[in-house]
C-alpha cells in the first residue's frame, strides 16, 4: 500500500471498503513528513496530536456507519496565511512569527465541516510575495522533483507537500499565479477559482482585489471535490458571490470535450517561452484536437502591459494592507525605540523581509502624489480593458489554453538578486487575476531533465465546471497522474 501515491478519491474509497483506517493514513503521512521534510521544507508547523484525534473520530464514524462528510478523514495541508484558530499563522514572516489567530478562516470551517483533517501549515513566500518560496523568513522549500530547484511560489510549500506525498490535498492562495505556477513546477493540479467563489475571510490579505483561495491535488477529480468543499457564499466576505451554484463539479466531469472551442492566444507562445514547454503544450493541443475539441489561434494583446498593471495594483494594495503591521497592537515589535515614530519605523524595518519591503515601496510610490495618475490610475483603466478583452475571447471560445510559466523550475538562488526577472516569470498567470477569472494548471509533460511542465486552462467567470471538464479530459488522455517523484535528489 503506497499511501503517498493515493488520490483523495482513492482514500475515500479505502475508508468505505475498510482497506485502511484514517488513523493509519494520517500516521503514514506524518511519518513520511518526519522522514523527508527536513530536506524538502514544505511545512512550517504540524498538528500531529489534533490530526490523530480527528482521525480517530473518523474511524469511529465509519465503524458506527454514520454519514461521512465529503472529505471525511482526508488530510489537508494549509498555506500559512490562512487563519487557523489556536494554531500559529505566520505568513512566513518574522512580523507574524507569534501570531495565533482567535478564529478559523471560512475555508477552514468548511473543510472541518466536510471532515477534512488539518495536518499542518505550509511554507510560502513572505506575505505571498514571490514566485519561488525563497522569500520565507523561516526556510527555503525545495522542489521534490529536484532538490536543487525551487518549487515555485508563493504557495510552494503546499505544492511541494502534495508532490512529495506528504498529503493528498493542500490549500493555497493565488494573487498572480501563486497556486498555478507552483503546481506546474511541482507537477500537480492547481485550481484558482473565480474571484468571489471562495470566501477570503481569514485569508491574511496581500492584494484584496486579486487574492483567491484554491486547491492543490494530484488529480482534476480531486480538485473538483476540493472546490466543492470550500466554495460558496459567505456573509463575512463582501466580495463573496451570491449565486445559486450547487457545487458538485463531478457531475459533468466525464462528459468529454467534443465540440468545445479552445483559443490559443498567440502572444503567450512567442519570444521568451521555453522550447520544451512550448513543445509539450503543442503536443497536448494535438490530443485535444484528437478528442474532438476545436482549437484556434487568436490575439490576446495583454501579456506585458498586464504584468505591469498587476505589479502596480498588487503592490499598491499591499502597501495599504500591510500598513496595519505597526508594532503597536500585535505582531513583531522592535526593542529599539524612543518614541512612536521610531517604534513603527524599526518594527516594520526589522519585521519585514526584503521582497515585502520592495513591494510596499513600489506600492507607496505608485500611490504617492505626482505618480498616482502616471501609474495606479492607468493600471486600473487597463484592468478594465483586460476584462473586456477576455470577455470578447469568451464570446468565441469555451476556454483558453496557455503555458503557466515561461520557464522550467529554476535553480534555488538563480533569480533572487534580480526582482524584475522574478516578476517576469508570472507573465502568463497575472492577467487571470486582474480579470478575476478561474484557471487551472495541470501537468502536461516532463522536460528532458525530468522536471514537470504545466498547462493552463482559463475559463469564463463561474465556468469552473467547463474548466474542470476540459482539464479532466486532457488529464485522462495524458495519463501522467500516477507519476510521483522518488525523492532521490533529496540530500
Amino acid at each position, binding site marked *: 500500500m503506497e499511501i503517498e501515491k493515493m488520490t483523495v478519491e482513492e482514500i475515500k474509497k479505502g475508508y468505505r471498503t475498510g482497506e485502511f483506517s484514517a488513523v493509519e493514513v494520517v500516521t503514514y503521512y506524518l511519518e513520511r513528513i518526519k522522514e523527508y521534510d527536513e530536506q524538502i521544507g514544505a511545512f512550517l508547523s504540524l498538528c500531529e496530536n489534533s490530526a490523530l484525534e480527528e482521525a480517530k473520530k473518523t474511524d469511529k464514524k465509519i465503524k458506527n456507519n454514520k454519514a461521512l462528510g465529503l472529505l471525511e478523514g482526508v488530510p489537508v495541508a494549509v498555506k500559512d496565511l490562512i487563519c487557523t484558530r489556536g494554531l500559529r499563522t505566520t505568513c512566513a514572516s518574522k512580523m507574524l512569527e507569534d501570531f*495565533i489567530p482567535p478564529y478559523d478562516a471560512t475555508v477552514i470551517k468548511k473543510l472541518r465541516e466536510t471532515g477534512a483533517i488539518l495536518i499542518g501549515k505550509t511554507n510560502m513566500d513572505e506575505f505571498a510575495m514571490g514566485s519561488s518560496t525563497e522569500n520565507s523568513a523561516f526556510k527555503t522549500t525545495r522542489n521534490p522533483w529536484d532538490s536543487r530547484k525551487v518549487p515555485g511560489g508563493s504557495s510552494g510549500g503546499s505544492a511541494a507537500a502534495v508532490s512529495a506525498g506528504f498529503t493528498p490535498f493542500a490549500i493555497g492562495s493565488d494573487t498572480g499565479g501563486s497556486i498555478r505556477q507552483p503546481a506546474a513546477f511541482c507537477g500537480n493540479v492547481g485550481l484558482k477559482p473565480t474571484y468571489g467563489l471562495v470566501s477570503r475571510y481569514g485569508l491574511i490579505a496581500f492584494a484584496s482585489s486579486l487574492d483567491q483561495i484554491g486547491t492543490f491535488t494530484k488529480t482534476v477529480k480531486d480538485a473538483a471535490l476540493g472546490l466543492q468543499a470550500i466554495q460558496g457564499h459567505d456573509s463575512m466576505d463582501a*466580495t463573496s458571490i451570491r449565486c445559486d451554484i450547487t457545487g458538485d463539479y463531478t457531475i459533468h466531469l466525464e462528459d468529454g470535450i467534443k465540440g468545445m472551442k479552445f483559443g490559443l492566444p498567440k502572444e503567450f507562445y512567442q519570444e521568451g517561452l521555453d522550447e520544451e514547454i512550448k513543445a509539450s503544450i503543442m503536443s497536448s493541443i494535438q490530443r485535444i484536437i484528437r478528442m474532438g475539441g476545436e482549437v484556434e489561434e487568436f490575439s490576446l494583446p495583454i501579456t506585458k*502591459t498586464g504584468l505591469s498593471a498587476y505589479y*502596480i495594483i498588487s503592490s499598491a494594495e499591499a*502597501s495599504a494592507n500591510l500598513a496595519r503591521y505597526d508594532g503597536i497592537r500585535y505582531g513583531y515589535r522592535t526593542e529599539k525605540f524612543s518614541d512612536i515614530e521610531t517604534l513603527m519605523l524599526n518594527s*516594520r524595518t526589522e519585521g*519585514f523581509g526584503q521582497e515585502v519591503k520592495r513591494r510596499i515601496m513600489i506600492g507607496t510610490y505608485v500611490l504617492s502624489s505626482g505618480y498616482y495618475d502616471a501609474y495606479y490610475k492607468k493600471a486600473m*483603466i487597463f484592468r478594465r480593458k483586460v476584462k473586456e478583452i477576455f470577455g470578447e475571447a469568451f464570446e468565441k471560445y469555451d476556454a483558453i489554453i496557455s503555458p503557466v510559466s515561461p520557464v522550467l523550475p529554476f535553480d534555488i538562488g538563480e533569480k533572487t538578486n534580480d526582482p524584475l526577472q522574478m516578476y517576469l516569470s508570472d507573465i502568463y498567470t497575472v492577467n487571470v487575476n486582474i480579470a478575476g477569472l478561474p484557471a487551472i494548471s495541470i501537468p502536461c509533460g516532463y522536460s528532458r531533465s525530468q522536471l514537470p511542465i504545466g498547462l493552463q486552462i482559463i475559463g469564463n467567470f463561474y465556468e469552473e465546471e467547463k474548466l474542470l471538464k476540459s482539464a479532466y479530459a486532457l488529464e485522462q488522455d495524458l495519463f501522467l497522474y500516477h507519476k510521483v517523484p522518488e525523492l532521490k535528489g533529496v540530500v
Partner: protein
Amino acid sequence: MKVDVKTINHIAALAKLKFGEDDAERFAEEFKEILEHFNNLDQEDLLHEDRNPANGREASLREDTLETFENKEELFKNTKDFVDKYILIPKVIE
C-alpha cells in the same frame, strides 16, 4: 523617470520604513528597471476606458449588526501586554 536615493528615502518615510545608504542605492537601481517596465502602460490606448473595475458587480454586504467577539482571551494572546480589559502599549503621545 528619475529615482534617486532622495526619492527612495521620501517613499520610505511615507511607508514607515528606513534604509541604509547601500540599501537605498540598490533600491533606486531596482526601481529604475521596474518603472521602465511599468511604462508599457503608455503604449496602450486607455482614453476610452472607464476605470471602475467592479464591472456592474455589487458588493454583498451583511446586516450591520453588533456581535460580541467571545474569544477575548485568545484574541488578546497576540498583544504584547494586557491589563484587565486593556491592551498595554508604549507611550504614544509626546
